[in-house]
């Protein structure tokens, strides 16, 4: 299905959907742009910059309550309440790379043996209305990881800016359902303009880098700590890269005491943190930032692709590059491994 929606109507769409769903949309936030829960009266900011943090919280919130243990008086048996996420979510205005993040989650959170009910429930109940990119940033490399600035995979509706509105194309039946709303008008022949814009954006990205040799080449450097010490020298081992990343899916589980009651929460975790692999004995197999950065890069460009049909666990959004306080560039590290002369 192809339709057209004006800028004003897209904002109206967000407001209308917010009546029945949890809508996440990019809004201007003190000089940056973040995804916030959209409330009628708010104005989306789709164009000034890519949201600082990816929209992964829609399907994988930073804090998820897994269960609550309630006990009113010490003598009483505690009551255990499971808290599966309820309701529908809509993400509006994410970029194709942000929407694609969950495609990396899927094979991990749903296997023959293990199914994560929390993730799967949100996944089923979340619709992504993405905006194709007009122009790549210096840190974008989606075209090198099997995607592109107008990649529909991962989205339910893909918008392309044409004049004062967007050409909307449905990708899934859920997307088509939303596009039946009266705010969408006939696209006329604007589809052609959208095609031209999509093609131009792809052209501006230039030639793609070939990561085909990356899995083997990174594995070849696995025991080369000198290589990783040099690559990680400027890294400060914080969690900025992983927390902003649409594809980083690791979590921690904590039982939080609330007096007689407690809650079991799942929170984002990150492989750059010391506690990530800290064992009960006190031993830490990844005791330095060099070990940790090796894992972060290796997992995305080597171990994950080896396990999952060659798919690279990175969407090329560039957040970890541009928002790293030290300017660590994941592309450079993979290149260095690929170009390493034995």
């Amino acid at each position: 299905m192809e339709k057209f929606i004006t800028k004003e109507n897209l904002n109206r769409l967000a407001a209308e959907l917010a009546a029945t769903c949890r809508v996440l949309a990019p809004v201007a936030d003190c000089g940056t742009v973040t995804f916030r829960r959209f409330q009628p009266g708010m104005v989306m900011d789709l164009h000034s910059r890519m949201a600082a943090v990816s929209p992964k919280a829609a399907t994988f919130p930073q804090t998820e309550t897994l269960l609550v243990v309630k006990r009113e008086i010490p003598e009483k048996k505690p009551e255990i309440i499971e808290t599966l996420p309820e309701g529908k979510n809509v993400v509006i205005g994410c970029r194709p790379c942000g929407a694609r993040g969950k495609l990396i989650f899927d094979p991990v959170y749903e296997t023959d043996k293990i199914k994560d009910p929390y993730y799967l429930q949100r996944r089923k109940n979340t619709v992504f209305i993405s905006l194709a990119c007009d122009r790549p940033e210096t840190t974008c490399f989606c075209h090198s990881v099997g995607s592109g600035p107008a990649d529909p995979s991962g989205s339910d509706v893909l918008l392309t800016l044409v004049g004062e509105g967007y050409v909307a194309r449905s990708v899934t039946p859920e997307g088509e359902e939303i596009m039946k709303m009266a705010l969408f008008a006939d696209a006329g022949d604007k589809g052609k303009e959208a095609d031209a814009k999509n093609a131009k954006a792809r052209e501006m990205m230039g030639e793609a880098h070939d990561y085909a040799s990356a899995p083997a080449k990174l594995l070849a450097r696995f025991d080369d700590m000198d290589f990783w010490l040099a690559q990680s020298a400027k890294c400060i081992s914080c969690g900025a890269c992983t927390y902003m990343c649409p594809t980083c899916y690791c979590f921690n589980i904590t039982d939080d005491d609330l007096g007689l009651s407690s809650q079991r929460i799942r929170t984002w975790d990150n492989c750059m943190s010391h506690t990530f692999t800290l064992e009960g004995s006190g031993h830490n197999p990844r005791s330095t930032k060099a070990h940790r950065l090796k894992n972060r890069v290796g997992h995305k460009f080597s171990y994950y692709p080896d396990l999952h049909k060659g798919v690279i666990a990175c969407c090329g959004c560039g957040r970890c590059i541009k928002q790293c306080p030290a300017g660590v560039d994941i592309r450079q590290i993979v290149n260095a491994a690929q170009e390493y002369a034995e």
Partner: protein
Amino acid sequence: MSQLDDLKTAIKSRLGDLECVIGWEQGYDPLHATPLFIRSEADLDRLIIGPLAVHNLATYLTGWKGKKVGVVVKGCDSKSVIELLNEKLINRDDVVIFGLCCDGVVSQRKIRAALPADPGFVESVEIGADSLKVTVAGQAATLRLDDVRADKCRVCDTPDALVSDFLIGKAHTPAPAPSLKCQDEFEAKSDAEKFAFWQETMGRCIRCYACRNACPMCVCRDYCIATSRDPLWVSQENLPSENMMFQMIHVSHLAGRCTECGECERACPVDIPLMLLRRYMNKQVRDVFQHEAGKALDQTPPLLTFKVEEERINERGW
């Protein structure tokens, strides 16, 4: 010879005895620098200095403890080195300090706000004596350095490195502004307004700890009480209250040790104005203890020592 040439000559003269010298090079685009670890003369060719060299490289020094390294520091960064020395977190014999007389650095956030399009679309940058010519998304813009200077540079009274083995550049007569407008305006707010501000702002903190790890004085890092599991001091739940709790921990652990280098705020990926808290805390420390961290060698931070009777704390008066 230019300041950069002088610096390169100085580094070359010592590179042989050192594991590496930490400086800056151009980063992933022409608008951003990134730390450079110089191990050979070939690496030295990539060295840059100037308004884009924002990182406080003193942050890396504790990570090299026990090895001999060199570090290039601006005036403000040199205060971090002094504080690390004063707290015996690094050894003076292990560091060769290449001090700069600094003309100030930019705030990438101010550049972002001043450009006609997102800096992600930068095509070229020309650095002039008092301006930056930036082309973004096909549009050229000339920014006055004065307009995009980092806040700390506006109030800087130590542009020339306070401790160094080589001091490079022409000495300055500092002319700091008496205070920062953003700070004054914030402090003039009522408690209720401040509370509402942090409630809202801390809602966007992702607890990535970039602020902590970028801080040269936050030396616990891997053993920070905010991430210890046993005991569990701070909930991992991402709530404004818990996020603010972590900031309170950072601020109070830095009382009398913070040199106002601004790295915490610069590192924050979601632009939280963390310096509002640090500057306020530092003002209290100045008022009560008449102490400024990193201003002189051989002083002890007030909270790392003990006086039976503090001059400005009237302990028995109430």
